[in-house]
């Protein structure tokens, strides 16, 4: 008990100390979070009428973000497989960062779903026994289940590993290995179930395609790892934590394969729709070309296509992807490209035209954007804090004191001078911020 307290106290010390860049980053996130909370209060008071969603387009920006972030949460599994199935050492050392990302991402997913609910006060209806979960009929019930399962798994794995390392013990293999192995199908299941949630509806021709689940997986294995690479590059640059080039290049290589499959599957679908040119074509036509002058999504989807293709070529050639400047560009392009394609680009054409063929063009309102930014900031905030504790532990700078009572925080350089972990998604911005904080 006392050990846990010391651990918690030490973590608090770590969280509250850092470079100037760290403070700027954390407080900007807190500001965004407060803005999101205020916007959400406004939404609670007035109802979802403050969004641009209507009966014709009944899901919008929140569910788009949700769908995309479910994909990001997969990052972990792409690290876990080489690390623990093939025991590839360079990645084994960093897999835990992927698990921490998964935890933050799933929390964001749950927040996005909550923001979308008309009656968040009734969330307890989803809890089995006291509520009434429609299991196994409703795919949304499945989704709630697998998301929580995946969250718990990653929390337990990352928490246990870090806590063991803090105690300078080897994590118990017999306990952790089954959990790690189990997290692989769990990661795949969160995507599959989310895809099934859409593809199971005969009413929505745009989603009612069996290719949807494989496409989800392929694009998830692009966006999540791309984000991880950006984080790794930042961590490596601004902390003492060593991440080997080999690990980063391996992940980049995996992204190249995943992007190829993603583009191939997309091409297969586009071909089928446009060549057949049946009534099913309408939503896809809306997405890529617009119909009857309704073109809200057109510039976005072409941006996404351009970004994804460029990134694919960057990642394809080993010599190019090993150039870290190009690598950063590629990762940013992929992240944005998949965000558009798997977010609004997937959700909105399901509703436009609607089931009675009415066209209502959806554009999120300021409130929706503010709430969503708040949720993104929450996720990044949680991830930053978890890295702030995890990295010193992995470095061996934060561990139980030799007398076995308090905690020991070594390396004051790290706290005072050196640069804290700064997992900004925007590489340049945080680089600039950190440069300013250099002594």
């Amino acid at each position, binding site marked *: 008990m006392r050990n846990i307290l010391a651990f918690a106290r030490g973590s608090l010390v770590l969280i509250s100390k850092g470079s100037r860049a760290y403070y700027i980053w954390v407080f900007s996130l807190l500001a965004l979070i407060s803005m999101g909370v205020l916007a959400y209060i406004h939404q609670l008071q007035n109802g979802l*009428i403050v969004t641009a969603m209507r009966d*014709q387009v*009944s899901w919008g920006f929140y569910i788009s973000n949700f769908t995309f972030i479910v994909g990001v949460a997969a990052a972990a599994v792409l690290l876990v497989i080489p690390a623990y199935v093939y025991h590839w050492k360079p990645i084994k050392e960093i897999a835990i960062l992927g698990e921490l990302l998964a935890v933050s991402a799933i929390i964001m997913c749950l927040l996005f779903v909550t923001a979308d609910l008309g009656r968040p006060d*009734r969330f307890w209806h989803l809890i089995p026994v006291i509520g*009434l979960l429609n299991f196994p*009929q409703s795919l*949304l019930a499945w989704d709630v289940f697998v998301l929580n399962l995946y969250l718990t798994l990653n929390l337990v794995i990352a928490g246990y590993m870090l806590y063991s390392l803090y105690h300078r013990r080897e994590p118990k293999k017999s306990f952790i290995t089954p959990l790690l192995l189990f997290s692989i199908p769990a990661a795949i299941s969160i995507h599959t179930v989310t895809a099934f949630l859409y593809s199971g509806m*005969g009413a929505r021709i745009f989603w009612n395609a069996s290719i949807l689940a494989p496409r989800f997986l392929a694009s998830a294995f692009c966006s999540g790892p791309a984000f991880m690479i950006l984080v790794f590059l930042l961590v490596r640059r601004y902390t003492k934590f060593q991440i080997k080039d080999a690990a980063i290049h391996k992940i980049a290589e995996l992204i190249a394969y995943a992007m190829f499959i993603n583009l191939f599957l997309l091409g297969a679908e586009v071909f089928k729709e446009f060549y057949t040119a049946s009534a099913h074509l309408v939503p896809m036509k809306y997405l890529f070309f617009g119909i009857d002058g309704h073109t809200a999504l057109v510039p976005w989807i072409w941006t996404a296509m351009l970004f994804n293709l460029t990134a694919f070529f960057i990642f394809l050639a080993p010599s190019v992807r090993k150039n870290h400047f190009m690598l950063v560009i590629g990762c940013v392009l992929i992240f944005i490209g998949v965000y558009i394609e798997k977010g609004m680009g997937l959700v909105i054409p399901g*509703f436009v035209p609607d089931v009675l*063929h009415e066209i209502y063009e959806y554009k999120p309102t300021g409130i929706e954007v503010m709430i969503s930014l708040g949720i993104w900031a929450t996720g990044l905030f949680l991830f930053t804090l978890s890295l702030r504790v995890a990295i010193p532990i992995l470095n061996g700078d934060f561990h139980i004191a030799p007398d076995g009572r308090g905690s020991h925080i070594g390396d004051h350089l790290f706290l005072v001078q050196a640069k804290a972990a700064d997992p900004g998604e925007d590489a340049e911005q945080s680089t600039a911020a950190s440069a300013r904080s250099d002594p």
Partner: protein
Amino acid sequence: MSDKKKRDAKVFQLTRRKALKGLAAGASVLALPSRDAAASVWDAFFQKHFRRMTKSDLERVLARLEREYSSEFSQEVKVGATPPIEGVKYGYGLDLSRCIGCRRCVYGCVEENNQSRDPQIHWIRVVRLKKEKGTDLHYAEHYYNPNQVPEPGHFYMPIQCQQCEKPPCTKVCPVQATWTEKDGIVVVDYNWCIGCRYCMAACPYGARHFNWAKPQIPNESLNPQTHYLGNRPRPVGVVEKCTFCIQRTRQQPGRYPACLEACPVGARKFGNLLDPESEIRKLIENKRVYLLKEELNTQPKFFYFF
């Protein structure tokens, strides 16, 4: 739809309902004990699922709702929960060749069923179609507004909940807030719906509507004769839909749905599908029947004649 198929569907449904009931009974033992009516906010918060309520639970809930609505709308509001009638399954018929597109059914429904006037909710949508294009909804006009109907070269198709025999909307609901009653009516428990709108994505007919804001109904326009699963005033943030006027059609002797009574040309027909002598059965047997989006196998109990 053949009779055999219909029967099969019914048997399936009955066994499923039984299973669910057993499950619900088992689980309700574990459910939170509801407190005495100290604060109705808490009563509302902890209110059980409609199908898990005991008789006395239900009476208390109905009394509380009557109290709330009566004070909100400054008049006596009745909230009933009349159960389905044995041996009855409702079916609706609509004669496309008679409909003149006047939308009287739409407004008759709004008044009977206490739909929100602001923002506007309509459970019935009448679309204008071109004769040469047939029932292809791609050419449907939703907001047609001529000085006079009918117009040459056009015909009209009112669309509302089809009370599907295999409703995709109830299948997807994560909390079973919407289900099919024994008489075939698909209902929503407005006090259990969490407002996720998954059912709206699943319904192929645009029949489900969401309360994006708190519904506004002027006091003098309220229909005070209501049903728990039907036309009682709805809270913000939940889904609602046509219930074949459950508050009227379940009465004995039964009354017709309001849209049928509002129709000036007699295009609308209603009756018991299980009674071989009923008007609706005779019409289905003798007229040419068109089912909307038949290919989706939702098996509507709403039959278009043409």
